[in-house]
């Protein structure tokens, strides 16, 4: 048990610390693919450091809610990181929240961010909040559906258990999982404000979603938000790994498997970042009103996955 607590802490801290690395890696890959000179891998940390040290400028109208939001969002992401198995399955904290609660945590962070965006009362902030919520209400059910499909196979909504079942099942091709996987990818893209749904690198009024929400943040608040964004991407990636390629995660009580698990995680994350970069390079950002169609497709795929599970696998 105590080992579990240590592992839990270790893994969470690792996630928090390593999250900007994944962002940096993705950016590097993308720059390479686009023929630009890549920023160093540590660029994300530098940016965070810089932001933390900077003077914070707050809008006059900003309320305490605006100031509290970065902390809330960041804590939510840390919590999420504490639930998703990355290295080991032995997570004493995980009964606190299952996948549905995980979706809830993400939603909480998002709602706070959207409210904060509306707090100052600028045109961009409200616009961003609206678009963010639009994306969310389509993405969230799709995400839930993905989880449900997986949980139908694993008979649980507890992540460690799901991972355990998925990793130790007899090897078989689950078409439902394939559908769910594609849907999950689409949802993650939307949730993490990546191309083709959103572009994290632009500040164009017509296209931006996430960036519009955090326009008014600066200094340490912005740093926290950026860090949360990185952490969110990391958690999502870990989630994808846990659900669809869970092999390698150390089972309960098997400390010896940990180094291998770490290696596997790094490898999978690297591949994941690369894939993300490739896809971002290949696709163009879509019009805002194509987004519902995009997410609708994800939703449909997830539901199809569930139906297929009933039809073929049960």
């Amino acid at each position, binding site marked *: 048990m105590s080992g579990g607590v240590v592992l839990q802490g270790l893994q969470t801290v690792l996630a928090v610390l390593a999250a900007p690395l994944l962002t940096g890696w993705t950016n590097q890959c993308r720059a390479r693919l686009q023929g630009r000179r890549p920023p160093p891998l540590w660029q994300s940390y530098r940016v965070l450091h810089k932001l933390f040290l900077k003077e914070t400028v707050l809008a006059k109208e900003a309320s305490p809610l605006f100031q509290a939001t970065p902390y809330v969002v960041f804590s939510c992401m840390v919590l999420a990181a504490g639930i998703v198995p990355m290295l080991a399955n032995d997570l004493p904290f995980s009964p606190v929240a299952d996948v549905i609660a995980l979706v809830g945590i993400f939603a909480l962070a998002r709602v706070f961010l959207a409210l904060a965006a*509306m707090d100052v009362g600028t*045109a961009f902030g409200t616009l961003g*909040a*609206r678009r963010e919520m639009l994306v969310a209400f389509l993405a969230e059910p799709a995400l*839930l559906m993905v989880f449900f499909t997986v949980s139908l196979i694993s008979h649980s909504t507890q992540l460690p*258990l799901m991972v355990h079942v998925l990793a130790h099942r007899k090897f078989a091709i689950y078409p439902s999982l394939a559908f769910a996987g594609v849907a999950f990818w689409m949802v993650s893209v939307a949730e993490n404000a990546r191309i083709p749904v959103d572009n994290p690198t632009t500040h164009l009024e017509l296209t931006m979603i996430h960036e519009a929400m955090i326009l008014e943040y600066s200094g340490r608040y912005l740093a926290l938000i950026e860090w949360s964004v990185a952490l969110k991407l990391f958690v999502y990636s870990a989630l994808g790994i846990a659900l669809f390629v869970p092999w390698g995660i150390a089972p309960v009580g098997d400390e010896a498997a940990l180094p291998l698990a770490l290696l596997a995680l790094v490898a999978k994350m690297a591949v994941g970042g690369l894939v993300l970069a490739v896809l971002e390079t290949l696709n163009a950002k879509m019009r805002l009103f194509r987004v519902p169609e995009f997410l609708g497709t994800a939703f449909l795929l997830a539901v199809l996955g569930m139906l297929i599970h009933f039809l073929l696998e049960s």
Partner: protein
Amino acid sequence: MSEITGYQPVAMVWGGVLCWLALALLAIPLRAHKRWLLAGFPLAALTGLWVAAVGVAGLLLPASAQIVPVGFPGLPVHLRLDALSGFFLLLLGMGAFGVSVYARGYFQHMEIGELARLAIWYPAFLAAMTLVLLANDAYAFMVAWELMALSSYFLVTSDYRVEEIRKAGFLYLLMAHIGAVALLLCFGVLQGNGHTGDAAFTFSAMRHGVLTPTQASLAFLFALIGFGAKAGLVPLHVWLPEAHPAAPSPVSALMSGVMLKMALYGLLRVGFDLLSVRQEWWGVLVLVLGLMTALYGVIFAAVQSDIKRLLAWSSIENIGLIFTGLGLAIIFSVEGKSGLAALALTAVLYHALNHALFKSLLFVGTGSVLHASGTRLMSGLGGLMRKMPWTGWLMLLGVLAIAGLPPLNGFVSEWLLLQAFLFTPGLDLHYLNMMLPVATASVALVIALAAYVMVKFYGVVFLGQPRNPALKHAHEADIWQRMGMLWLASACVLLGLLPSAVIVLISPAVQQVAGRVLTNDGGWLVLAPMDAARASYAPLPFWLATLAVLLLVYGLVRFRYTGRVRRSAAWQCGFPAVTARMQDSAEGFGQPIQHIFSSFMQVDRQYPQPQDRTPHYASVSIDQWWHFLYLPIVAATNWLSQQTARLQHGRIQWYLTYSFITLLVLLVFVQ
């Protein structure tokens, strides 16, 4: 009073009812004394607390019954307090306490005439709802039910000079009446056929009545129509978005938060208690209707620009979710999966309780906003967080709760509901197995959309900049109002943090309805229905962890980085001339929804003209049901009545002819 033995809980509730009735009656002679009238509300609140306490007693103690020898000869008023009514009494009492405390502050600025009307009907309304929960025979139930409708009608129309309010009241009472007629039919079918005379109307006779499947289905359908009309089930929901905004806010709070649950209670009473056997298709029907209601409600909530209307539609949505769960419970119970039925029912009851609290909170908070700003339209609101911090923060809790976000109470019940859905595989009916994933998806969609709606609601009203210069003078709610809201908000938090305890508390009600309690595999800290390995949720540790991380991060950041904070104008990408009109309006926020779900509604848009000095865009989304269902009925009625009127054309010879022909026809008939 016969048959009172000792301090039976039922007799104690009866005391609460009498208290409320006495307050109502006392208000009539005191109708000119403002101070006395206002003093009635805290007393009503205390009575509410008392009723809630007795409700808990009803949950924990065995059922108790009482016969009060008033009412119909041969059919005295039968009262009974069992766990199910105990639960709803608890709900009623908790809601009533908070709202009544609030009402003391809210009503004190009313004109005396309106205050007097409110002071008379408000306690009467509470008493009627209590009686609905206690009634143990069809007659008493109907009387209480209609008294509830009547008193709430008078509360809705307390400001009757406004034509819209009258229209809303009319529609409300009409729908209530139609619902009551359906209930009458339901009880008519249920009438215990083993008994004759007046005794056939007692619930105990109905419980033992033997019905054919057709009769039972008929009774259930009538009950569904009757209670659905009160609950606002689509397509019987049309009154709700009209009546709730029309009422004074505490009344809206009670109606939305508490009265709608009486419909749930009624359906549970009829469907699970009076009808001993259920059929699976009832569950499917309720499920489908519930989903439709939820989806319809939330979509329309998203496109409203009147805050109370928005909340009213959101109530429709929540009722939809509740009924979805109920449908699931029926399906499970028919299939003999009583454990799962218990899970679904727990979700239903939990959500009902939650909704009673957060919707009351939101409605009363809206009342404070209305009082401070004088408008319900979002286009004239904004930035109230800074003027009304108490209201703002307490409302934030309500908003987060209703949006189904952890660690508040809304999340718990929605989590339970989703868990219930996840357990559906393995039903005997295969088409259900196929259908339920889609249903699950819809529930998820509704929950996500609810968050959208609430961000819109809170963001537009409390955040941003005031859209109307007059809002500079907005004032904070007074101490009574704050206390009321505080009560409701803390209840939301507590229910969110201690779900295991709550589930234990409501388990007698679940036991009574589903025949089994929901087993919690996780102890008092962790909520783990059925099996901890399948799913668990522990809000208290969750909340503590969040808090810990938050404090840690805050501490670290503040300790490590001590950078200055400077206040300046908003950045806005450097755009200099920022005005409040540049923020998203309510219509703007609803536009994507209008766009995506355009087939659900008919949108009337008013576009600004090029020469407008203050260009304004407005869009009103009209419920399609009006066109599909209600207007054709009205037209048909009018047509029929015009045709009938042709009979009456004033010429006496014709009238004589009618008599003559009648005579001849009858003579031929008897020959």
